[in-house]
């Protein structure tokens, strides 16, 4: 066996790699954050920090005139802050970074078109569903009649979304392109880079309404899944979950939930929808 003599710089690099690896293994041993009572902290500092979408009308977007974030999700956040009697601070999140932001305590709640599903429920806690929709597609008018028409298509969606996983399951041969958020996927659709954009119908309707040449596109009646939205809360914060849930139920019984829906999805809105759900207590 011949002995390879590494030059000194290589040797030092190998050594630093070894140190790096051992550093990581030390980290593995220690647990990383102390106990936190989010509800108590929120009350103490007098501010509720909520992660919301900032370019997804009508759920959350920056209003051109006021340069403020507004939308259906923001009204939900306002109701929770009001119930707690604290100030509301909005933080823009994307589909991909919302869970890390939540688990690391950068935000107290995530109200950002988040679908409740069992995999996620293992990592975070969810409120009762505050919105109900289903996953569909935006495509060029008249091009798509059945799901088979999209079999080998290029389909745009957002990183880290349930839409991304659902479409990969229902159309395994399609090429799924994940952007940082949905509007970029719509831009790609307009420029012919993808043939369809997929996500929840309520989001699609808002996006379609915003498209400059919207008469050329449509949302065909092809639903691939049901998507109930929940407010996401860090695992194990029962106090906060209870406050959020009671806020939602009170909104339903007082009629405020109806009003908020009507404001963003009513007949005079950019993307009218029917309210087919009621906020109810679930297990």
């Amino acid at each position, binding site marked *: 066996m011949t002995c390879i003599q590494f030059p000194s710089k290589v040797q030092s690099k190998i050594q*630093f790699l070894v140190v790096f690896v051992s550093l990581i293994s030390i980290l593995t041993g220690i647990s990383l954050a102390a106990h*936190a009572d989010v509800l108590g902290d929120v009350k103490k500092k007098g501010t509720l920090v909520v992660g919301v979408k900032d370019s997804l009308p009508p759920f959350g977007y920056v209003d*051109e005139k006021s*340069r*403020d974030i507004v939308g259906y999700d923001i009204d939900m956040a306002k109701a929770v802050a009001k119930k707690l009697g604290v100030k509301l601070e909005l933080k823009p999140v994307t589909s991909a970074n919302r869970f890390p932001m939540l688990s690391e*305590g950068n935000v107290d709640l995530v109200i950002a078109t988040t679908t409740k599903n069992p995999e996620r429920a293992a990592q975070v806690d969810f409120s009762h569903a505050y919105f109900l929709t289903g996953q569909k597609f935006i495509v060029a008018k008249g091009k798509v009649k059945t799901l088979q028409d999209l079999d080998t298509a290029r389909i745009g969606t957002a990183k880290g979304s349930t839409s991304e996983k659902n479409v990969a399951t229902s159309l395994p041969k399609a090429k799924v392109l994940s952007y940082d958020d949905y509007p970029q996927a719509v831009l790609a659709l307009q420029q012919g880079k993808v043939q369809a954009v997929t996500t929840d119908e309520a989001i699609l309707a808002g996006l379609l309404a*915003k498209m400059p040449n919207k008469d050329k596109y449509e949302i065909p009646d092809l639903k691939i899944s049901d998507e109930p939205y929940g407010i996401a809360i860090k695992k194990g914060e029962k106090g906060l979950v209870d406050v959020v849930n009671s806020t939602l139920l009170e909104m339903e019984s007082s009629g405020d939930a109806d009003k908020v829906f009507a404001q963003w999805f009513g007949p005079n809105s950019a993307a009218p929808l029917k309210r087919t759900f009621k906020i109810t207590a679930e297990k």
Partner: protein
Amino acid sequence: MEFINSIFGLDFSVIRDNWLFFLVGRYPNGPMGGVALTLTLAVGSVFFSGIGGLILGLLAVSQRRWVRWPVNIIIQTFRGVPLLMVIFWFYFFLPAVFGKGFPEISTVLIALTVFTSAYMSQIVKAGIEAIPRGQWEAGVSSGLSRRQVLWQIVLPQALRHMIPSFVNQFVSLIKDTSLAFIVGVSELTHVATQVNNRTLNYPTEIFLFIAVVYFVICSAFTALSRQLEARTTSANANR
């Protein structure tokens, strides 16, 4: 402008309608953003990484092996991975260590500072190594300690030579702040994607516009760095 508009059918009114948003983000209703935040991030991290680079650079040329080695390992690690990865790391690591609510702006500021310090340290190291050994020997033989030679003779000269490279690093930093977009910090690039996402019809105009903004800021500092470089070299030539 009219000329460009007529050739490509571009419409720069989207810039006019949102110029304040590009400049300061949601301020004063919300946090500061846009160009103002880009500059804040760049100035803040160049200040801290100047200090960090100096410290790391001095440690990296230390006579003591047990100081020099770990420091060089840290420097090489940060130079070996993409800035985007470094930002993600701090994004996970800082809140885990310091607990709840560590703001993203500080996360990005720290990531940029640590990353740039590693590069700055190489400038410092090269600057110190460029000073002829004779000066060290002369200093020591005239009765000064190594530390005194370093602080009173070597560093003042070395730092003067480093100034242009520092300014160049500052230009890189201004460009690097655009990566803050990925963790949702509303600097210029993030603000631009927000407007792009909202309007959905003017990507060319918007990205062209912010490219021009970055260009104007960066080339001003590039010009400054060249001037400083010319001055240092002519000063040396005169001696």
